[in-house]
């Protein structure tokens, strides 16, 4: 087996700091450290989920890969070639390969564009087809996402949330992309529709060999869909592992707290909830050392001073915690 296989997408030490402007003349008064050194890879046909609570920088990672804004530091490589430092003109052909599906199906479609034009836009942009060939491709894409072909000439407001998300998926597939970034793509949908869209995504992945970067806070969906999971906390990845390993034997205390919050559909099961104290600290002024030390049940002096690196902790897990073995029963308050 080829051990030095080039991943489809490689992200190295990605940082995005948003300047905070204040004062009379809009001076920079500080930075929001939205993403602060994130590294991961995605192979062809693989799903990597990025999970974490609101404001941890999940979506910023997605948008930074799409270069919807310039990144502060780090590298983004597509098939081993850097794309983060390309000029807008050089980047354009690369855009064909990485597409996006956003969270809100209502604002991610132009209300004045017909479905056909929405789906045809990327094809036309990259000059992939025209005339009747274009119509054929749009029709095929509509079949792929299981929308009726006669929906082509309608406007987005005539569709439900789930149908609109199918239109968005068709648009993302249109240029023959290799990687689709699903930025909370199913979070706004209700449960039954969510399941349909998730199944559609995994069918399309099998059929087309797509890689997915699945940004979500819904662990149940992630467990169902993904190959690997990256857990983010305050702009950093705290744990990166295979799905089965992560859900069965999480290493990082934050991952454990997160997993313990997932509801179990069985009223007889007594769950051991790990209740974290306090709120997420502000990304404008993140804590020193380990960013999780303000809320961690196992905090010790080293955590406050030294930032833990993402390292191998056995069983294919990578975790950013100073502890090699985290005790099983957490030192939780018995408030619950």
């Amino acid at each position: 087996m080829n051990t030095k296989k080039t991943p489809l997408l490689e992200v190295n030490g990605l940082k995005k700091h948003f300047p905070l402007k204040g004062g009379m003349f809009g001076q920079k008064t500080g930075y929001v450290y939205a993403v602060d050194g994130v590294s991961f890879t995605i192979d062809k046909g693989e799903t990597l989920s990025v999970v974490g609570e609101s404001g941890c920088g999940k979506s910023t990672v997605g948008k930074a890969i799409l270069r919807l804004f310039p990144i502060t530091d780090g590298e983004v490589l597509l098939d081993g070639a850097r794309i983060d430092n390309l000029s807008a003109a050089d980047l354009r052909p690369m855009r064909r390969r990485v597409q996006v599906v956003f969270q809100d199906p209502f604002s991610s479609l132009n209300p004045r564009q017909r479905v056909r034009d929405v789906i045809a836009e990327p094809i036309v942009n990259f000059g992939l087809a025209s005339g009747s060939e274009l119509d054929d491709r749009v029709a095929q894409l509509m079949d792929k996402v299981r929308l009726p072909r006669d929906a082509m000439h309608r406007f987005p407001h005539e569709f439900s949330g789930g149908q609109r998300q199918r239109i968005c998926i068709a648009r993302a597939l249109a240029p023959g992309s290799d990687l689709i970034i699903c930025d909370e793509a199913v979070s706004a949908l209700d449960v039954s529709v969510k399941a349909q869209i998730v199944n559609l995504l995994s069918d399309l992945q099998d059929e087309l060999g797509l890689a997915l970067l699945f940004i979500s806070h819904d662990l149940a969906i992630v467990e169902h869909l993904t190959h690997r999971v990256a857990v983010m906390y305050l702009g950093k990845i705290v744990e990166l592992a295979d799905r089965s390993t992560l859900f069965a034997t999480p290493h990082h205390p934050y991952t454990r707290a997160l997993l313990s919050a997932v509801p179990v559909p069985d009223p007889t099961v007594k769950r051991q909830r790990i209740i974290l104290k306090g709120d997420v600290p502000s990304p404008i002024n993140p804590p020193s050392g380990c960013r999780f030390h303000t809320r961690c049940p196992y905090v010790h002096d080293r955590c406050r001073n030294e930032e833990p690196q993402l390292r191998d902790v056995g069983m294919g897990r990578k975790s950013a915690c100073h502890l090699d073995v985290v005790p099983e029963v957490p030192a939780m308050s018995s408030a619950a």
Partner: protein
Amino acid sequence: MSTTTLTPDGLTAAPDLADILPPRKARGKIMMFIYRYPTIAAGGAMLSIILAIAIFAPLLWTVDPTALAPAKRTRFPSEQYWFGTDMLGRDVYSRVLYGARISLIVGFSVATLASVLGMLVGVCSGFIRWLDAIIMRVIDGMMSIPGILLAIALMALTRASVQTVVIAITVAEVPRVSRLVRGVVLSLREQPYVEAAIASGTRVPKIIFKHILPNTMAPIIVQATFICASAMLTEATLSFIGAGTPPTIPSWGNIMAEGRALWQVKPYIVFFPAIFLSVTVLAVNLLGDGLRDALDPRLAKKV
């Protein structure tokens, strides 16, 4: 009605829906429109009448509005002179009807020009960051001068004619439209569908023309109607104080200015052009209000 055949024995079926509900009143499309958008219908109808009067003025039993007849000056309204005659014996009825042309030309031209220019400035400002600061400071400066004063100042620089009036009022109105368009563009830029378009390789000009501009049309159209109304008033004001349309051309402002000296004894010279001006401005404003409610419900709540 075959419901009985489907009902199992011993059960009574509910009557068909059609039997319970009264038959729906068939209403004509026009009646439906008036019912749903009464202000658009009223404003549109009034404006259409004024527009027809302006276009067909020569056919509406008018005489030459500039013809002098000193012997028949300051006559009261009568069968021969419907609105009376002014101090130089000119027929006020003919002058008012021809005056409608000037008002409407000025109103529509200013609305169109100001919208187009404002859209251009607003899109540049919303899309080019470094230009935005410069444009916005210039616009702040222009907006700090009252529109009518700016128009008077511009008129003082040029020879009076209808074109210069249009230009002067347009310059005074452009900042408002630019501000509006800039705001809308800035909010649309952040919309996920624009981000998705960028991600799928759409170039900036296409993003502006396909994704941004079509979505700014509704607020611009609404704003244009209000600019039209305010331009008519400004034109009348400029003419009234003698800084607008030259006195040789009958405009509502001119007629009122000329009748001003006599208004205590011959009020009808001022009265008729004033009524026409009020009704026209009301019609345009009604139309604008209705369009705003119909096109942009969010704006309707705010204003």
